C-alpha cells in the first residue's frame, strides 16, 4: 500500500476542478486506497480561485496538503498554478494548461497578469518536472472544449506515477458522463495521457 501521494488541482470556478477530484477520489476508493481531500466551495466558486486536494495513502490524516508536500500539481489555469507554488518540492510533478483566464480586475487596471514565460520559469525553479499543455486545443480535438478538465486528468495519469489504475479512472470517467458525451471524454483522457507521456520523454 502506498504511503502518501498528494494531488492538488487548481483553477477557476467553472473549470470542472471539483469534478476532477470527485473522479479521482471515487476511482481511488474502487482501488481500495485511503482517500482524504478538501476544497473551498461557497463564495470562491463564483469566478474566484478554486483549489481541490486529493490525498492518497496510509500516512494521510488531514484534508489539506502540508506545505511542500504536493506530489502532483495540476494547473487548469497558469496563474492559479503559480498561486500554489509553495505546495511544491523539487520532486513534485507539475502539469499546466497554458490557456489563461484573465480576471476582470486586470482590464479594470486593479491588478496585472504575468506572462506565461514568467509563470513557467518560476514553476521550473520550484520543481524539476514541469509540463505545459494546450489542453483546450486537445479538448477541441476530442470534440468539446468542455472536456478540458478530462484532458488534464488524462495528463495526470500520463505521468504514470499515480497509485490509481488507469483502467479504474477510465471506467470512472465513462460512468460519470451521459452516453452521448462519454466517448468525447474518453478520447480527451487518451489525448491528455499521450501528450503528457510525449512531453516526459
Amino acid at each position, binding site marked *: 500500500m502506498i504511503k502518501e501521494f498528494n494531488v492538488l488541482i487548481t483553477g*477557476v*470556478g467553472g473549470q470542472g476542478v471539483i469534478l476532477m*477530484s*470527485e473522479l479521482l*477520489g*471515487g476511482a*481511488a*476508493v474502487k482501488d481500495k*486506497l*485511503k*482517500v*482524504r*481531500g*478538501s*476544497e*473551498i*466551495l*461557497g*463564495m*470562491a*466558486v*463564483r*469566478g*474566484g*480561485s478554486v483549489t481541490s486536494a*486529493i490525498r492518497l495513502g496510509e*500516512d*494521510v*490524516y*488531514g*484534508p*489539506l496538503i*502540508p*506545505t*511542500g*508536500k504536493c506530489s502532483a500539481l495540476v494547473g487548469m489555469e497558469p*496563474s*492559479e498554478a*503559480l*498561486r500554489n*507554488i*509553495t505546495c511544491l*518540492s523539487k520532486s513534485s510533478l507539475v502539469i499546466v494548461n497554458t490557456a489563461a483566464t*484573465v*480576471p*476582470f*480586475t*486586470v*482590464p*479594470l487596471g*486593479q*491588478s*496585472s*497578469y*504575468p506572462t506565461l514565460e*514568467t509563470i513557467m520559469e*518560476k514553476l521550473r525553479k*520550484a520543481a524539476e518536472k514541469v509540463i505545459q499543455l494546450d489542453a483546450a486545443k486537445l479538448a477541441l480535438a476530442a470534440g468539446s*472544449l468542455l472536456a478540458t478538465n478530462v484532458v488534464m486528468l488524462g495528463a495526470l495519469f500520463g505521468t504514470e506515477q499515480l497509485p490509481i489504475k488507469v483502467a479504474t479512472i477510465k471506467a470512472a470517467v465513462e*460512468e460519470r458522463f451521459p452516453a452521448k458525451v462519454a466517448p468525447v471524454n474518453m478520447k480527451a483522457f487518451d489525448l491528455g495521457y499521450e501528450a503528457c507521456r510525449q512531453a516526459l520523454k
Partner: protein
Amino acid sequence: MKELTITADAPRERLFVLGNEAIARGAIEAGVQVAAAYPGTPSSEIVETLSGVAKELGIYVEWSVNEKVAFEVALAASICGVRAMASMKHVGVNVAHDPLMTANYIGAKGGLVLLSADDPSAWSSQNEQDNRYIALQAYMPVLEPSSVQEAKDMMADAFKLSEQFRQLFMLRSVTRIGHARSDLVLGEISREKREGKFVKNRDLLVYTPKEARLNKPLMLERFDTIKKAVNTLPYNQLKLVSGAKLGIIGCGLSYSYTMEALKWLGIEDKVSILKIGTPHPLPEELVIELLKSVKEVLVTEEIDPFVELHVKALANEHSIPVKIHGKDLLPRVGELSTRKVTEAIIKLSGAKPPVDFAKLDKLEKETTPLLPWRPPALCPGCPHRASHYAIKTASKRVARELGKDVEAIYPGDIGCYALAYNPPQEASDTIICMGGSFGIANGLSHVVNAPIVAHLGDSTFFHAGIPPLVNAVYNKANITMVIMDNSTTAMTGFQPHPGTGQTAMGEEAVQLKPEEVARACGVKFVEVVDPFDLKAAAKTIEAAIRFEGPAVVVSRRLCAIIDQREKRKRKEPIIPYFVDQDKCSDKCNACIELLGCPAIIKEDGKTIIDQALCTGCGVCAQVCPYKAIIEVSQ
C-alpha cells in the same frame, strides 16, 4: 455493478463522499425522522442530502424560514419522542440562540442533535465565532470529529447519547470536515419508526420562573452524569508514552493535523497524545492523567482556546506542575494546518524542521505580487448586477440635489449580492448579519441626512427581513428597502424558500410574494421592477427614495444560473451580445468599469464579449454610450 448511494443498506462497504454527506449518512443510520435547517455554508449539503432521500426513507425534511424555527421544529419532534436534528452554520446558531438556551432545561426525549458548522478562516462567513462557547452556555455536550469518518460515526451515536442522557447534543463540524472528501465505511441503518406523541407536562414544558428554577438543578445533574461518562467514550483516547516530556491534546480535526505533524517530524513515538472528541464536557480524568505524566502540554484546537482554558483550570485545581501551551504558539485567527501544528511542536520539542519553512515563505512573498487579483464576482447575466446599477444611478441623482457632499448610504446583507461589495459596484456600505441591511437602515435614518437604500435577497427577506421592515413602518424610518428577488437561495446552492412555492421535499406550497408581505405590513410605497430594464428600474427606485417614509422596491429576475439551466432544458436558444468594433471606442471602457461582467474582456486592447459566457441579458448594451453592443441575431 450498481453504484452505492448514500442510503445504501450495505454495512462495511466504502463510499467516496463529501463530509456533509457523511454527516447526513450518520443521521440516516440513527433513524432520524425529522431534519430541519436554513441553508448556510459550510452546512447546506447535510439537509440537501436528506431532502433528496426523504421520500425514499419516509422521513420529514424541511428548509425552515430561519434557524430559530428549524431548531424549534426539531425540538418539538424530540419532545414527542422522535429522533430529530437541526443543522445550521455557526452564525445560524445565533439566530436559534433563544430556544437553545431553554432546550436543555427540557432535555431530549427523542434523540436531539444540533449540527453547528463552524467556519475557521471565515471562508464564507462574516465572522469566525467558536460555537463551543454557545454549547458551554447552553449545557450542551459537544462531539467534535477528527475526520469525515468520525463525523458520520459521531452523528449516528449522537442521537443515542442524547436519548441515553436525555440531553440535547451538538456536533461541531468545521469547514474542513463538512467540505472535506473522504472514503467512508458505512454502518447499519436503523429501521425503527416512531409515532410522535405529545404528552402534556406543564412542569417540563411550560417555562415560567417556577419551571426554570425546578428544571435547572435537574439539568445540572444530567450534565454531571455526562461529565463522568465522557471519560470512557471511544472518541476520547489517551496514549501515554513512557518517559515522554511532551504531551499533546488534540481536539477534533486538530488531532489529525497533530498526528500528521508528529509523523512528518518522525517523533510520533516520543510524545504522549490525548485525542479529544468531547471538548465539552472534557474527559477530566484522562486530562489529569496526561498532565501528571509530562512536563509540558500543547493543546491544539481550532479558533478559540476553549479546551486550553479548561485544561489550565484543571492543572491549577489539582496543583499539577505542568506548563500548558496552546494559543501562545498557535494562531487564534484562521484554521489550523499540519504546518502550523508542526511549527508549534518544533518550538517545544526541538525537532528538526522537515522542510525549510522560511524559504517557502520567501517564495510566497516573491510570488504574490505577480498574481492577478481574482475576487469572486457576480455571474454573467446576474440580475443583481443590474439592480445594483439601478440603485446607484437613482441614489446618486437624489443625493446630488441634497448637497455637493451628500452621498447615499447602502446597507447590504448576506447573499450573492454581497459579492458586489468589490469594485466596480462597491454596492454595500455595511454587511453584518442576515437581515442586518434593513435594521441598520432603520438606525441610520434617525441620525444622518442622506438617501438610505438598503438591499437584501428574497430568501434573506423571509429569514430576517420582515421584523426590521415592520419596525421601519412603526417607527417611521425614511428608508428605501430593495428586495432583490431572484426566486431562490442562490449563494448556498439554490434551495427553495417561502417565495418559491416549493418545499424541501419537492412538494408545492403557497408562494409568498415579498410585495404582498410589504403591503400587508403597512408600507405605502411598494413597486415591482425588472432590473434588466435599467432606466425604468432606476426611475422607480428614485421615486422610492423621494417618497417620505419607508418604501419597498422588489427587483425581480430569476437567478441567471437557474434561468440558463431552464432555457437549456426547454432547448430555448441563448442569444449572446457582441461588440461592434466599428462603433466601440476602445478607450471608453464604460461597460467594464460600470458592470464588471466576467463575459466582457479585453483582448489586444479591444473590448470583446466572450460568446461562451454571455447569457444575453443585454444590460451592457444599455450602458454603452456608443451603442456598440448588439444582440448577435441582429
